[in-house]
């Protein structure tokens, strides 16, 4: 029995793992409300498997809210409400019967501020696998090493795995958080301004890491840094606040197109630094 069968058997309401579909993630006419305030309006876009998609736009335009649609993190906010279709491998993830816990295993998230748990480096990485039932010490050792190697952190921490995850530098902490997500073996990694608290060298390391991860993972990254979007992403979505203060998608396309030949005047103004 393979994992896909197991997942189906548990009836999580989600598609089998790594189902062969064109669009990994899809938004169709999505509106997100916090109470009566509409944070994002009429979002529609397709995100391909194994690509890096950057979401850019001025502060408060709903970038993070949009990102959190994909793993239903907005559920944690009592007043949040979603309209429209959010698809993961062709399945509506907001329909009844979807197991949010299972969804978040497959759509992992890295946050703006490095947020390792106040436990050892080892326990941080082993946290997800342990919650999902792996108890065998050797299996955990393997997962921890593999994840830290993938996150390009192994060489720096292999001799101090029992030290606190908070004792390493900010850039290392963020890579630890990435390793922690990788240990769960997700298919999609959502990154919410992962480098905004890091220095340029640590930022470059994370960007290199993203480029290597994209062979197996679909990555969506929110960033304030337009150079970063240009350097790292395949596709770019530009969001802006419209007249009623809701975030709307102004332009979505190949990163090379958006940055060299934007179709929308607002996009051009933003990327050339005329506002925002």
């Amino acid at each position: 029995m393979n994992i896909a069968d197991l997942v189906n058997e548990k009836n999580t309401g989600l598609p089998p793992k790594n189902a062969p579909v064109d669009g990994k993630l899809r938004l169709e006419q999505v509106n997100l409300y916090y109470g009566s305030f509409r944070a994002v309006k009429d979002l529609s876009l397709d995100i391909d498997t194994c690509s890096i998609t950057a979401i850019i736009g001025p502060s408060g335009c709903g970038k993070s809210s949009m990102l959190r649609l994909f793993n239903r993190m907005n559920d944690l906010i009592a007043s949040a409400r979603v309209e429209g279709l959010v698809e993961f491998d062709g399945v509506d993830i907001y329909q009844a019967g979807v197991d949010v816990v299972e969804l978040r295993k497959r759509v992992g998230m890295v946050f703006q501020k490095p947020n390792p748990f106040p436990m050892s480096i080892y326990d941080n990485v082993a946290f997800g696998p342990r919650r999902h039932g792996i108890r065998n010490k050797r299996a955990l050792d393997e997962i921890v090493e593999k994840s830290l190697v993938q996150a390009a952190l192994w060489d720096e921490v292999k001799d101090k795995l029992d030290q606190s995850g908070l004792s390493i530098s900010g850039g290392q902490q963020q890579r630890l958080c990435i390793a922690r997500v990788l240990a769960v073996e997700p298919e999609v990694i959502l990154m919410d301004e992962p480098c905004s608290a890091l220095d340029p060298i640590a930022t470059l390391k994370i960007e290199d890491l993203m480029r290597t991860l994209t062979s197996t993972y679909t990555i969506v990254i929110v960033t304030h840094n337009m150079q970063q979007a240009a350097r790292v992403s395949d596709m770019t979505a530009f969001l802006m606040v419209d007249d009623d203060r809701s975030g709307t998608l102004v332009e979505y396309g190949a990163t090379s197109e958006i940055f060299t030949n934007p179709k929308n005047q607002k996009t051009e103004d933003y990327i050339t630094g005329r506002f925002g």
Partner: protein
Amino acid sequence: MAVTADLQGHPPGSIFRGKPRWGERIIEKIIFFNGMVAILVLLGVFIILLREGIPALIETPFFEFLFGTTWYPVSEPPTFGILPFFVATMWVTLISTVLAVPIGVGAAVFLAEVAPRRVADAVKPIVELLSGFPSVVMGFIGLVLLSPWVQNSLNLNTGLTGLTAGIMLAMMSLPIIVSVSEDALRAVPDEYRQAAYGLGSTKWEVIWHVCVPSALSGISAAVMLGVGRAIGETMTVLMVAGGALALPELPTEPMTPMTAAIASGIGNAVQGGLQYHALFAIGLILFVLTLVVNLIAARILTAQKRKFARE
């Protein structure tokens, strides 16, 4: 400002200052004095305890005092063995802790992590209000309500037992355990919860594997405060623990914890007499006991901090 040089000859506007800042100095002195007063008072209490307690420990050898099972202060010759009181304190504290810690921490988890904010904000002040209940009132409640129930349901000769006292003490230490643990849980950064949910954890897993461990130092402090309260509480145990002087083998027997022994004995003791000194010696042992509890708490806290400290 006068446009002349000051007394030391510094020109106006220079970075030199001719006169000292008296205000600063006086405030520093006052704060230093206040700190010293607090320390000296504590030291004074300890010295008095030692001075009044040591004579009893000279008269009755220390081990006999600690492990003797009879307390006959007025017989001839008097014997001063405090083991029954010590064991009574242990029973009462144990029962109180076993009851109050799971319930208290559970309630704190409910208030901090599960209950809607509105409910938590309404309930917490009520819980905290309970800690202000005069202990004599709690003793009265134990006497009138709890002890008949204990007597009937366990079929005992009397409802005034260590168990009854332990249950009352649990109620009295609950508020502080709930309140301090809840504060500790609220102080856990939301980023930890987000990260755990983002990794596909259930609500229970987030609470049990992230929030509670992160708040563990605060929760242990809460537990130690609760234990301290149970050890030190006097009036309630004096009223409901039964007051028997025999060595209690079971918690369902009447007993006299150390605090109650001091409170009930001090009225009859002649000042400067042997019994008077013996009661002070009990006080000394109580003091050492609470000191040990506090030291353990401090050890847990620093170990916890060292483990998870940022750099």
